[in-house]
């Protein structure tokens, strides 16, 4: 490999006209290039390419124009592309990053900017340092805050610790068990719906998740939904449609409290998200009823459950063995019902659950590949800095030179140093 091919055409001339030029800078360059050329061919390393490809005048234009084209394409791609936008999304993160880099740290000379990102921290610009520092502080502070909040909630809880169950959707790439979601819907419909609403769920959302379209239509049609006003201005009731939300057992909170001895049965749509230990807690709650221990007295309408903070809960035990009969013939024990209804509630709270895990798998795979690329790039860029014999030089030398000649001087200076050393 010959170094000349990496040198902009204007300098080919210099190299070709070997007799010393009158301009001292060109001489320097000439000597430097032939020195490096020898060095490179002698040792068979291609460390030196980077210096030229990233610092000559005409090449730095490439990354920027390339990035512009990419952004343009990125903007039109979602509308024309047959893909699901995942790669364009990833793409945009990378682009955003390079954009930030260019906007915040751009100098006259883009080449220097790009090099800067791979420099030792002591040579970063103020902006660069500020950006990275505030990013680090925000990220670190945010996570500590969340961690601290999480801890304090645990510390102030007087309820029994819940056991961790082996949910078959708890792995990184495990989907919900949809047969269980379907049974859970049967449990909710026949048991919990008497007191609890799931007011943010529409019948149509269950199609293709735990019901077929015909089944969902039939389920909806069984309910009478308020509609209107009709032409006389009166409200009326009609059979439900797929687009209707699930009806609520009580018209408002007061009615719900009145019917339940003052306790309010919370909406269950997002309940697995709304309780610490979500599914495990609800499982413990539903299956953990017991007689109050000696010395504990309960008010009327209260029941004892060690997993409920305080112990006295307004909800009576809802699940017993054989409380319903499953359509698919699964024996309806108490724990089976609890497991199924919780799987259903988990789906209500996170309808994107399965897709999310599929995408996690894709993301890990693609990021894994990108990781290799980044690792290689890292080695590639740092190879320049790691051969410091060639690159290091005192800053005082740059004082009177323009940015663009900076790297040539660096090279020259080291060349002289090396000559002196030997």
């Amino acid at each position, binding site marked *: *490999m010959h170094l000349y091919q990496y040198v902009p055409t204007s300098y080919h001339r210099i190299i070709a006209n070997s007799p010393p030029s009158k301009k001292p800078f060109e001489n320097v360059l000439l000597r430097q290039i032939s020195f490096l050329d020898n060095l490179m061919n002698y040792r068979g390393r291609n460390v030196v390419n980077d210096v030229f490809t990233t610092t000559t005048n005409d090449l730095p234009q*490439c990354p920027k*124009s*390339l990035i512009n*084209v*990419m952004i343009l*394409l990125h903007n039109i791609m979602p509308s024309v592309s047959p*893909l*699901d936008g*995942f*790669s364009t999304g990833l793409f945009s993160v990378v682009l955003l990053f390079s954009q930030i880099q260019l906007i915040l740290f751009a100098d006259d000379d883009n080449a220097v900017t790009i090099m800067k990102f791979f420099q030792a921290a002591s040579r970063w610009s103020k902006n660069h340092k500020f950006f990275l520092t505030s990013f680090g502080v925000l990220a670190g502070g945010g996570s500590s805050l969340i961690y601290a909040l999480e801890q304090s909630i645990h510390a102030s809880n007087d309820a029994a610790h819940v056991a961790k169950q082996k949910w*078959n959707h708890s792995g990184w*790439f*495990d*989907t*919900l*068990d*949809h*047969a269980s979601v*379907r049974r859970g819907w049967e449990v909710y419909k026949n048991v919990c719906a008497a007191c609890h609403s799931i007011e943010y769920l529409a019948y149509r959302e269950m199609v*293709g*998740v*735990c*019901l*077929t379209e015909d*089944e969902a239509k039939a389920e909806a049609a069984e309910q009478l939904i308020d509609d209107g006003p009709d032409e006389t201005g009166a409200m009326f009731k009609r059979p439900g449609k797929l687009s209707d939300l699930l009806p609520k057992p009580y018209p408002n909170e007061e009615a719900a409290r009145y019917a339940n001895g003052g306790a309010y049965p919370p909406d269950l749509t997002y309940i697995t998200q709304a309780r610490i230990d979500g599914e495990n807690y609800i499982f413990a709650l539903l299956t953990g009823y017991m007689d109050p221990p000696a010395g504990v007295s309960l008010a009327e309408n209260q029941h004892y459950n060690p997993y409920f903070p305080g112990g006295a809960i307004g909800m009576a035990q809802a699940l017993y063995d054989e409380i319903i009969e499953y359509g*698919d013939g699964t024996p309806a024990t108490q724990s089976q019902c609890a497991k199924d209804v919780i799987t259903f509630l988990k789906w209500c709270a996170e309808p994107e659950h*399965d897709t999310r*895990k*599929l995408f996690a*798998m*894709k993301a890990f*795979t*693609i990021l894994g590949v990108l990781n290799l690329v980044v690792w290689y790039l890292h080695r590639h860029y740092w190879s320049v800095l790691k051969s410091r014999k060639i690159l290091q030089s005192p800053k005082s030398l740059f004082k009177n030179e323009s940015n663009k000649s900076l790297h040539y001087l660096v090279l020259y200076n080291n060349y002289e140093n090396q000559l002196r050393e030997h």
Partner: protein
Amino acid sequence: MSVVKVFYQTVLRRPSRFFVVVAVGSLFFERTIDIGIENVFDRMNRGKQWKDIADKYV
């Protein structure tokens, strides 16, 4: 070495070509990754997803 060099000369050297390779390559890359991973995912979760049990109910 020569493979690398040919690759460099034909693909990486000119941003225009490089970009075309990236754009076209990403189409194939994404389809491969998508289909491949969805297969693995479905195999890992065999019997659990709705599409595995739907035929019981129609």
